């Protein structure tokens, strides 16, 4: 990934020296929808190259946390720092918006339901933002897109439209599309939850390769196998706070809290399926 110049906006530059390779820092993050507190003061640091998996029951705030990191949800209070860009949440104005855009440029995001642009072909989906946001020449963007599609195993689908692809293929295009912006951090919001069980494997394979290549990733998922094999750290969230965190072995092997035990027992009993009852109950084999 190309290094981006350090910029600090809407905030006094960090008073305490950041740890050597810290990429993401979230401090005292609060988010409420109306009167409902979803995040209650989250603190999170992610090192460069680290893969963090967020686990937790439905409504525990893990997706919201992920979406707050690139400001698809606006947190009310707290501080978010990605790369060299620091944003104090709850402020507004030009500097704030600039900083938000800068954070988004540093993050790639993969959604549960893909959100590919249906009116564009696969290649057009991938080159859209590099051309119109990053100002990359079309020819360069196309070459880059071809390489990325190769990387996710979809070279032969370059001219297809999203509607002509299976769910797993769509999700892999979405990953390629996010990578095309050369992000420093990849956010995965339940990337396999909307997929048929037999299509999950390909997507997880791409994610594993990505992790192996040193990409920093924050993943919301219910794929315990993926968490065990790939994650450097697993975090269990409940009711807007971090309940427990540690290496996957620690967390899955000897959870400390009663709630963690209940949750993990549920997941393991269901053979790794999602705790949410909606559409995903027989989703899954553990890869």
């Amino acid at each position: 990934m190309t290094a981006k110049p350090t910029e600090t906006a809407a905030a006094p530059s960090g008073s305490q020296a950041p740890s050597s390779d810290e990429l993401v820092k979230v401090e005292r993050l609060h988010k409420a929808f109306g009167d409902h507190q979803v995040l209650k003061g989250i603190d999170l640091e992610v090192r460069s190259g680290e893969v963090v998996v967020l686990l937790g029951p439905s409504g525990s705030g893990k997706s919201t946390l992920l979406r707050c990191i690139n400001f698809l949800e606006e947190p009310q209070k707290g501080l978010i720092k990605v790369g060299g860009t620091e944003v104090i949440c709850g402020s507004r104005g030009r500097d704030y918006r600039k900083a938000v855009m800068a954070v988004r440029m540093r993050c790639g995001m993969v959604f549960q339901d893909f959100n590919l642009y249906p009116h564009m072909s696969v290649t057009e989906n991938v080159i859209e933002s590099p051309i119109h946001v990053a100002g990359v020449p079309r020819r360069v963007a196309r070459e880059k897109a071809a390489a990325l599609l190769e990387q996710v195993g979809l070279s032969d689908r370059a001219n297809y439209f999203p509607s002509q692809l299976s769910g797993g293929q769509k999700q892999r295009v979405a990953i390629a599309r996010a990578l095309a912006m050369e992000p420093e951090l990849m956010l995965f919001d339940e990337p396999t939850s909307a997929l048929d069980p037999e299509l999950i494997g390909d997507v997880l394979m791409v994610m594993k390769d990505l992790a192996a290549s040193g990409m920093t990733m924050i993943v919301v998922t219910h794929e315990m196998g993926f968490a065990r094999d790939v994650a450097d750290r697993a975090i269990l969230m409940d009711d807007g706070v971090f309940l427990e965190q540690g290496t996957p072995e620690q967390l899955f092997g000897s959870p400390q809290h009663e709630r963690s035990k209940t949750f993990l027992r549920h997941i393991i009993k269901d053979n790794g399926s999602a705790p949410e009852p909606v559409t995903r109950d027989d989703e899954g084999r553990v890869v």
Partner: protein
Amino acid sequence: MKYLKPSGVALLLLAATVLCMALPALATAAGDVPPSIVYAAPYKDMPAGWGGQTVIVTFKPALHAGKLDSVVPGKSNLWINGKEYPKAVKALSEASYGSSLQFSGFPAVPQGETRFRVVLVTASGQSASKAWVFASTGKSGVSLIDFGLMREWFGFIVKGAPIAIYVAVGSSVLAIVFGLLGALGRLSKTMSYREAWKKYHSWRYMGEYSLRLVPYWLATLYTSLFRGTPLLLQIYVVYYAVPAFIDLMRTHWALWNHVPYPSAIASGIVALSLNYGGYVTEVFRGGILAVPRGQHEAAWALGMKNRLALRRVVLPQAFRVVTPTLGNYFISMIKDTSLLSVIAVPEILKRAQLVGGRFGNFMSPLLVAAAIYWVLTIFFSFWQMKLERRLERDRKAN
């Protein structure tokens, strides 16, 4: 979805004003056009017969340097069977939608084959002539449906069709522009005042937020006003109010002397497009709202700002949603161009009324007009159906 800023609105209003003023100027900008004779009576099978007393020449008015170039009765001449009648009484009526010169006061012409020739000469010396032979068939009288009249005048009435289509297409394009702006304005309200207060608890922010809602209120006023008053009334207001406004301005600023009065067609296009724009606003609003929120989020997550996300991601999808509805509005618009007959736009209905008035038989030309409208709508419905099928096929393929 904050797409329109107040500064942008000011700019757009300015552009719209300039456009509205440029339109009539464009419509009247033309060089020299000689008079052209549309028809001359007596003609074969005249339903009322010919009394042998008058000759009427109907023509399209001439233009000289873009201005009406009046026919001079004194220079214009009539020949009957080779004999010139310079002393004939000439009555001239000239109007943008049809002019005529009536010759009378010559000795009665005997029934039978008669040769006619007329020459029209304008003030600037442009001329037109026509020679024809008339033979009375002896038929006379007016019937309810006069096929002879219909046949004879079909060509005249159908010449209104291109005008109707021109007006409908022009109004549609403008209506889409107005509708798009209206929809963006309507969608620029992201939260209520109560929510805004809860979010920041700041009077200064409430002030800023009010300013940001200006496009919303403008768009709301626009749709409410133009959907809440009759189209016919709007046509009258635009047609009479704009020249009155220009007059008023001229009394204050000499510069306004260079601003021409809008032509009837330009006024009509403005009125129709403003009215339809009010409805199209709601169509676009629905279309934009029909694009899933995930599409906005994907665009934002990929670094796009609101404006770019709108242009590249949201609007292309919204256009697909609204195309069939816009097609319906276009077909409806073709029929509503007939309302412009009240401000003397020479479209289909106005021409039918002219013919009806001249011969005291309204039924026949109105039936011709109805047939023309019907054929037009069938034609455009057919294309709309094809377009819809294609969109449907694309949607299924997608």
